[in-house]
């Protein structure tokens, strides 16, 4: 019987400090056993439990894309015991990864459709995975127009700035980067909160257009009415939720919303699904 609680051993290969407050770092991991990498077959939108012997585990969205082979990337916000410890770890250190866990964005359903990605703050990780996945030459023809609305407090708080700049230059993805405010005179993108920019830049909603939203609760709260106004269908509004988790496999009991476990039945739900679930998240 395979033990679903046993993490795969991994080594930290690279650490990148992402944001000006140094609170967000991206870790690149490689598997110690090549077989484990084969078994870790994931889709954009899934998460994993990062495990540090002696400290514990944390559920984190996978920031690398399934089209990037040979490693995994996670962007980690320094918050509690485990994440603070990981932030102090070095290249070469050994830890563990358990997964992939949860469901993913509905890539099969979105084939042939327009996709609008809406992200705020550090919740851009699985969205980064999704963008890389869609822009892969094998996958790009599967989707129609792609829009990305991504905001952070300041330019220095945006994740993956090099990649954002590259995507800006492409003609097969429409980037709408925004910051809440900046005193940088050379800032050439948008200024304004994500809901406002969504209102101005997002394409109108219809059966052929899907929105994937990931961000802080306040952003989601104010973006939803904008999408309603733009005519988005609730079945086509896809959200990824966060919860305190331990097991990650629907057994330990804490991350439920009604009868659904966010770790196993989610973290991805449509707005239609959420409307039929208790408002307890």
């Amino acid at each position: 019987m395979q033990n679903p609680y046993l993490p795969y051993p991994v080594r930290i290969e690279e650490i990148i400090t992402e944001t000006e407050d140094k609170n967000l770092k991206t870790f690149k991991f490689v598997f110690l056993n090549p077989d484990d990498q084969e078994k870790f077959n994931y889709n954009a939108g899934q998460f994993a439990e990062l495990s540090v012997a002696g400290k514990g585990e944390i559920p984190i969205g996978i920031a690398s894309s399934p089209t990037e082979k040979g490693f995994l990337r996670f962007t980690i916000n320094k918050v509690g015991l485990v994440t603070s410890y990981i932030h102090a770890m070095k290249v070469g250190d050994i830890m563990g990864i358990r997964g992939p866990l949860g469901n993913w964005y509905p890539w099969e359903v979105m084939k042939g459709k327009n996709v609008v990605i809406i992200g705020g703050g550090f919740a851009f990780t699985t969205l980064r995975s999704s963008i890389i996945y869609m822009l892969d030459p094998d996958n790009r023809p599967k989707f129609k127009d792609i829009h990305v609305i991504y905001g952070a407090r300041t330019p220095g708080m945006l994740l993956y700035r090099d990649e954002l700049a590259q995507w800006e230059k492409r003609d097969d993805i429409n980037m709408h980067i925004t910051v809440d405010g900046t005193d940088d005179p050379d800032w050439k993108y948008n200024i304004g909160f994500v809901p406002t920019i969504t209102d101005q830049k997002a394409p109108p909603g219809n059966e052929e257009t899907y929105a994937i939203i990931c961000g802080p609760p306040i952003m989601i709260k104010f973006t939803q009415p904008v999408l309603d106004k733009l005519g988005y269908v609730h079945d086509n509004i896809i959200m990824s939720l966060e919860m305190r988790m331990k097991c990650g496999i629907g057994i330990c009991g804490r991350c439920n919303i009604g009868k659904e476990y966010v770790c196993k039945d989610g973290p991805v739900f449509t707005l239609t699904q959420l409307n039929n679930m208790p408002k307890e998240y």
Partner: protein
Amino acid sequence: MSGLGFKVKVYMMKIITINKEDWAKGLERLCDSFRLFGPVKQDEFHNFRQLVKGELPDLNLLNTRLSAKSMVYPQSEKMFEFTLDENRDDHHILKEIHKDYSPKAVIGIRPCDARAFLLVKENFDTPEYKDPYWIKSYEATTWVGYACNTPCSTCFGTTAGCGPFHEQGLDLLLVDAGDYYLLKILTQKGENFLTAAGWSSKADSDAARHEIETLKRAAEEKITARISTDKLKDKKTTELFEAPFWEEVAFACINCGTCTYVCPTCWCFDIQDETIGLSGIRMRNWDSCMYPIFTLHGSGHNPRNTKMQRVRQRFMHKLKYYVDKYGDGIQCVGCGRCIRHCPVNIDIRKVCDLMNNFEA
């Protein structure tokens, strides 16, 4: 006819009589092939623990204080071990711990606790994920049930899918018939147990069945508390969730967690690492939805921040979410422990009626 039905039919025929003197001899013989567990009185209360050779389970009880769930799922359980010593090749890599899954028998489990394992199994043994600790431990165990001639005062098992002589989840059912025991063999595991015990005085099956039936009916009649669960399935989750009675239900609750601790069907756990020097273990411990930290996010946000939300979670889980998720009735066997031990007299039977009768 289904396979299960066939099996039940075959083994239902077999009932043996055990003189109370032979009982001890059989248990002694069983020690050679089973680890034996049973209720033992410690201070004022009975609880399950392993029996040393020659020790008898104390069957002079209504029920154990805690449920039998720890027989499969201990309150604290080691999952993995590791070393932090960087001079060793395997440092910081979690490794499986050897565990004893040799045959064991739990003697004297009440039918409510035995059925509870079947409800909990839905959670630990799923099509997608198998919890190896729970499943291996459960499968290693032979369940020797002990019929309730005198049910507890708070029992409502007969309307909670169970009953004082309920056989689901048991391999054998032991019935105290006064001067002797009747032992009903229900499964092949039960048959193996019987062989190892060496009890052989086959009872006149018709008379024994009649005797058990009479005792069963008398026991069932003593259970007067009833619940109704028939309408729970058709209620809308969001409407029950918003029902006005939750504040009142939760008003007196002090979130002590006793209900979840004594409950045979509460399964939630936490995972924690512990280290001493350079060696460590990852373990899991029973947890409780009554505690605010159970759902506290790293950001400080807590979806179940108030005690009303937590009390509502417990009852909605047992009486609505479980019903909808598995289609196998409520997540409760009516043992009544939470009612007996709640310090502020919250009564799941009343809450169940409120929910079942609720009209939005």
